[in-house]
């Protein structure tokens, strides 16, 4: 087991309304088996004991599934390892003496709340606008009466793996959330249950997407490269087709009731 010494340049910002700046910390005795967040935990305990304000960052499950964690490490959302959330990024991927620049997601639609914590509630509002299948509780038909081809179920699951972390937005030069929206549109849109609201769903979600001041997709593909769940940009193409069809042929429905 080897121990690393790292220099951390961390974005510190007291609140949304105050300017932020990088501050430098030394992390010595970093065990290679630590996760990135565990390394920050140790730094934070030292800061507290020294009477300083610890670095605020988001985290919860630490298993790569809740989507809470996320920071830009040396310019890459979630850090250098592909298809990996920050909580699953282990220090063995860094080298002794390395300098790290740690920043929050940068996007107008994700205002910084403190240090590395950003407000991602825009994602919730996009789902509220139509990212669901309308079904009453307790009166659903027998499950096997809806047959779903295995391939479609698998394909739907590929899109449904999105954890809503926001790395796609942070990686996109336009700060677009198209990959996030496309994943949800795709997850529900390839299933038979999702068909009745398919066109209306894509329209509502994209209207909300724009209202939240996310940018547009210009096919950079950075989102796919940064996505810890490897959601494909093909879903964006599929979403665009649905959106086009929705505007050309599908009737506009009234607001969700």
């Amino acid at each position, binding site marked *: 087991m080897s121990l690393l010494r790292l220099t951390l340049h961390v974005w510190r910002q007291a609140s949304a309304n105050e300017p932020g700046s990088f501050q430098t910390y030394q992390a010595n005795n970093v065990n290679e088996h630590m996760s990135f967040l565990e390394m920050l935990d140790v730094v934070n305990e030292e*800061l507290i004991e020294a009477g300083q304000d610890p670095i*605020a960052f988001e985290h919860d499950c630490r298993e790569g*599934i809740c989507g809470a964690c996320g920071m830009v490490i040396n310019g890459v959302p979630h850090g250098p390892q592909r298809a990996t959330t920050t909580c699953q990024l282990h220090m063995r991927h860094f080298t002794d003496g390395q300098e790290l620049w740690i920043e929050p997601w940068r996007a107008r639609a994700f205002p910084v709340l403190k240090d590395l914590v950003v407000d991602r*509630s825009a994602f919730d509002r996009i789902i509220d606008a139509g990212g669901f299948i309308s079904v009453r509780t307790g009166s659903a038909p027998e*499950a096997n009466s809806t047959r779903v081809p295995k391939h479609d179920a698998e394909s*739907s699951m590929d899109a449904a793996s999105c954890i809503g972390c926001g790395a796609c937005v942070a990686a996109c030069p336009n700060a677009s959330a198209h990959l996030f929206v496309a994943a949800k549109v795709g997850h529900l849109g390839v299933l038979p249950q999702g068909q009745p609201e398919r066109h209306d769903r894509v329209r509502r979600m994209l209207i909300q997407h724009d209202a939240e001041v996310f940018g547009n997709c210009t096919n950079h593909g950075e989102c796919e490269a940064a996505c810890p769940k490897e959601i494909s940009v093909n879903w964006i193409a599929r979403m665009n087709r649905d959106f086009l069809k929705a505007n050309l042929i599908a009737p506009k429905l009234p607001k969700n009731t």
Partner: protein
Amino acid sequence: MTVRLDAKAPNGPIETRWSRHKAAIKMVAPSNRRKHEIIVVGSGLAGAAAAASLGEMGYQVKCFCFQDSPRRAHSIAAQGGINSAKNYQNDNDSIWRLFYDTIKGGDFRAREANVYRLAEVSLDIIDQAVAQGVPFAREYGGHLANRSFGGAQVSRTFYARGQTGQQLLLGAYQALSRQIDIGTVRMFSRTEMLDLIRIDQKARGIVTRDLVTGRLEAHVADCVVLGTGGYGNVFYLSTNAKGSNCTAILRAYRHGALFANPCYTQIHPTCIPQSGEYQSKLTLMSESLRNDGRVWVPKSPEDCDKDPRLIQEEARDYFLERKYPAFGNLVPRDIASRAAKAVCDEGRGVGPLINGQRRGVYLDFADALRRLGHTAVEERYGNLFQMYERITGEDPYEVPMRIYPAVHYTMGGLWVDYNLMTTVEGLFSIGEANFSDHGANRLGASALMQGLADGYFILPYTLPNYLASSELRPVAEDHPEAQRALQEVQAGIHKLMSAPSPKYGPDWFHRKLGHILWEHCGMGRTATGLRQALKEIPTLRDQFWSEIKITTDPQHINPTLEKAGRVADFLELAELMCIDALHREESCGGHFREEHQSPEGEAKRNDASFSYVAAWQYSGNLAYPTLHREPLAFESVTPSKRSYK
């Protein structure tokens, strides 16, 4: 407060108890529903399902979660699956069999009527989830696929890769989102409940802290539902999300809600072993891995540090298959966990030495890879293998995984009656936050089932019964009781912020507490150890209140303050857990008292003396809670020795 434990469980034929109960309880007319406000705390499977269902029925719901989005509740991390007695596999499954397996799995320490109802509504849950678009695994004909799970001899587990909890939670979250848009549910994210408001002996609201601005607020309603999950994080190292906490249920306990079976902790056998002292949590690997993975350790301690691939077949001990031939690697979690601990205690554990001991056993897929091929194994377990590789740096396709038991789920929780109401009128508790349904041990794939059953199919019937049969005078946020609760929370925060000799952050204390609990109230418990813990916990608590150090002010995002408040509550709950574990002079399920075991090392129950739910009442003194007993009557099944041989 005098407490009368009335479970309100119906009698008569078990098959019709729930339908007869539903027919008898009172309802609220559609036009009256919007006049009722309901508070739901927690947005996991139970909370989100309840809030969405009640909102859709027409009630005005306020839903709270401490995460930035309801989609991040810890239910999302459940991997393996959800049980349902659909019998799609034609392998002789039935509601009865799911009921029986659950009662037996829980070591005959659960309430029969609740468990039967759970098995019954399990059918509806799958229908609901499929209709919502949960992409469950399918067979080539388009029908739902199933797999088997520990503690059962049938394949009744529905799954969505290794992300079943995530998909079910997204289903519930999306249903909730729909209600938020319609306006029946108001969502309060990044908001933590810090106290309960009781008016005229009834639960009428909560005090919350806005985790961004630090603002404290009182919210009132006609009743309060707690779906705040379990308290396994009391051990510090557990498979729970870091934010999971006991604050809401502990505050309810202090207000008179009884806490049932607090010592029942499930230790999950398939976790990635600990790698060092800095570690912040343990990662679970789905139990479904035991379907195809074979658990073994070397027969001889001399082989423990060898490359496992070089250890010949005859030098391996497949101890689960040897000891439990009928269930083999699929024995329930408590049995598998104890067997793994036993071989490690014998000095036959594998993996790195930590404090002089190797704490790990192999979970080997070599046979499965030969039998099924790489592609099929990858299809079944690919994401779990990837996760393991990330954390350990080892490739499980090449070398066997190493696993060790870890704290996973807490079967104890707030005592609730058949209507899911606690002993505080108008305070309901659902999902892992209550004690019901699992007894002393939970079967795999049953947690998701219970959360959704409570949220979608039980509470929406039983809660209106309370509203329709109670006199609820209007109250407002400026009610003296609400203001008093608000001031108490304010004082509590002030106390945390102004310890006399601040020294350490909350994690320091939390780790110490975790050590005490794991050592003395973990996989094996003894009277001596528990008495020791009961000395150490109050001492640590005193040290906490004198030395807790919080360096940021409370008017901002302050994760240290949040953690400190939660650790303060864990320090109280830990004592209650040890008191409960000490009083229960028997071994059952996840509660293994070393004094009570058979010569073969199996748990020895004492039905004559302990066939009851231990429900503890706060007496004003943490060290001396009052015990109330709910006797358990087994009319449909006969408690028998649990044998998986």
